[in-house]
């Protein structure tokens, strides 16, 4: 009997996590060390390690077959043992994981949010995905300043400098929004590639952001809104990354200069002390370590909007300034790499989002898109924010293909790969919002597949 069989034998309706969701390097090490104690069990370090953690407690009180009640644990840890709290040690494996292969330079790379292990819609700040072009920095907030200037003097009456403290004094707003890299799911543009949802969709996070509407600052500087229709945002990192955003979003009061995220200051990886919040728009425009805003009369054609973040079309043309993140959804459980314990009841759950506004509905298919059922939207349905959905499912033990399809309030329907490719080809690594399929095998194993 293999370890995997041991696991599958326990408890109907269990979803076993994907191995890399569950194990950190230390676990793997422990696994190797403890292997010699697992007499008679065929252990494969790559496939079966999950079982080791589960197999260990059989002798403990409270385990199935045990006669003793759950233990009294004795005295616990003192208060403030961790002045800044930490997740349970049993959750250590749930962490950001780096994208290997995007670039050999670790400062110019990305790490993925472990979506498969998150509940609700908020991403814990420490698990927010990362994409840096020249490494993250941690500027001193007493020295950091934000300049607001114009491409030419006539566009702005009074260019100004704001300290972080200045911004903290102004009336603040807090809003919840998703943040997605336009390269999210880019690997899947031609075929199913990523083993788990962390790698296929994990350049996605959602937070409550707190800050000052940019409009307020521009008004204070006397910007000529009639002529200055474009805004350039610049970061203080070594990339000095710049992007153009439209003044319309600023005028609608959607764009914030944020300092807060999920109730605390931004994390350095997310732009401490200041970042731009541009709801519905791809992550690269949410400039981190924000140090300068310039208003201008024309889009800026900067490197990260002329050489990168451009969408290659089948005729060899590139689409430029493709900024919106379109309607999209993904099932987080069951998802790639996980295993269904046995036939029975499962809660299919996932998230949906759209850069065009609120989610109107999500449909779920268990037969690869032939028939669909409306899922239930659980929790808040907010503008340009993740929305959680849920759908009951009784797995009969046969092969199934699980899909979710979101519709937003603009009426846009999330497309299939086939439909999206017919319109845009497979050349662009950006803006892939196609329907994701998870294939469930008779063994209960769930795999990333594509229905084309």
């Amino acid at each position, binding site marked *: 009997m293999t370890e995997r069989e041991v696991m599958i034998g326990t408890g109907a309706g269990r979803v076993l996590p994907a191995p890399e969701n569950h194990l950190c390097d230390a676990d793997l090490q422990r696994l190797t060390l403890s292997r010699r104690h697992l007499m008679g069990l065929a252990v494969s370090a790559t496939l079966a390690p999950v079982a080791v953690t589960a197999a260990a407690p059989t002798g403990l009180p409270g385990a199935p077959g045990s006669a003793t009640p759950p233990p009294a644990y004795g005295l616990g840890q003192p208060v403030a043992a961790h002045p800044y709290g930490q997740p349970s040690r049993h959750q250590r494996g749930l962490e950001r994981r780096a994208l290997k292969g995007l670039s050999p330079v670790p400062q110019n790379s990305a790490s993925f949010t472990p979506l498969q292990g998150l509940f609700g819609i908020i991403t814990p700040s420490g698990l927010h995905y990362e994409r840096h*072009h020249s490494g993250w920095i941690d500027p001193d907030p007493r020295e950091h300043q934000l300049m607001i200037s114009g491409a030419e003097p006539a566009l702005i009456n009074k260019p100004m400098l704001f300290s972080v403290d200045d911004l903290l004094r102004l009336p603040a707003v807090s809003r919840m929004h998703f943040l997605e890299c336009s390269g999210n799911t880019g690997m899947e543009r031609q075929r199913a590639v990523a083993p788990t949802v962390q790698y296929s969709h994990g350049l996605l996070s959602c937070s409550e952001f707190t800050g000052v509407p940019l409009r307020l600052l521009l008004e204070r500087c006397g910007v000529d809104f009639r002529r200055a229709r474009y805004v350039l945002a610049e970061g203080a990192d070594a990339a000095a990354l710049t992007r153009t955003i439209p003044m319309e979003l600023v005028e609608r009061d959607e764009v914030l200069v944020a300092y807060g995220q999920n109730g605390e200051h931004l994390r350095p990886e997310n732009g401490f002390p200041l970042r731009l919040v541009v709801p519905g728009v791809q992550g690269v425009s949410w400039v981190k370590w924000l*140090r300068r805003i310039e208003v201008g009369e024309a889009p800026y054609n900067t490197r990260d909007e002329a050489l990168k973040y451009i969408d290659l079309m089948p005729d060899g043309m590139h689409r430029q300034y493709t900024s919106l993140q379109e309607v999209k959804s993904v099932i987080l459980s069951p998802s790639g790499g996980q295993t269904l314990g046995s036939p029975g009841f499962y809660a299919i759950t996932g998230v949906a989002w759209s850069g065009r506004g609120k989610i109107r509905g999500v449909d779920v298919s268990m037969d690869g898109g032939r028939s*669909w059922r409306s899922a239930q939207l659980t929790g808040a349905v907010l503008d340009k924010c993740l929305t959680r959905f849920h759908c009951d499912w009784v797995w009969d033990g046969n092969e199934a293909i699980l899909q979710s399809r979101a519709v937003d309030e603009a009426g846009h329907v999330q497309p299939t790969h086939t439909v999206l490719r017919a319109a845009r080809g497979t050349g662009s690594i950006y803006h892939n919002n196609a329907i994701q399929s998870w294939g469930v095998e008779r063994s209960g194993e769930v795999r990333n597949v594509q229905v084309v």
Partner: protein
Amino acid sequence: MYRWCSLATLLLGLVAGAWADYPGVGRPATQAELALWDSDIGPDLQRLPAARGSVLEGQAIYAAQCAACHGDDGRATEIFYALAGGVTAADVASGRVAGLQGAEPSEVSTFMLLPSLTTLLDYTARAMPFGAGGSLSTDEVFAVTAYLLHLAGVVDGDFVLDRSSAELAQQRLPNRNGFSTDHGLWPGAAAVDGGMGNGGIPEPDTVRCMADCDP
């Protein structure tokens, strides 16, 4: 009654106006600060800084400060995709790079994409050499850019890049006509209203089929 209302609105407006002034928050930037902070070389070729640099000067700067990561000839290295290569004389003439059709991103060089000279000047000035952005003088940025233009087959070896010659280089960029903003993903005003894009027309326009669907 109407009068009272408007008077009240006016008073409220005045109060709000005074509040919206936020005295003591922020301070005017000085001319020196503006000059120091204004790092971007804007998109307008007519307003380039008054700087100059030759291919030859650029070659020396490139060898000393860029080649370690970008290779002697700007071809792909293990650090980054190719800066030069992949363009033909026909591309230079047409302004559309033929090799882009069906290309994998890792096979695409900077000059196969580059729509505008200012993009390259602006980025090199702020972000290169990697980790030491802003360390080149503006003349050096112009020189190393002239050298890259030469590596890519856009200009001859005796080219000198400055305000007056920039337009010529721009008109020879191999992919200068390879970009379009005719799409629905720009969240600002549409082209018909003086902005960009088609105002968000859905593409593809999918139907929300519920039963007997074509998957």
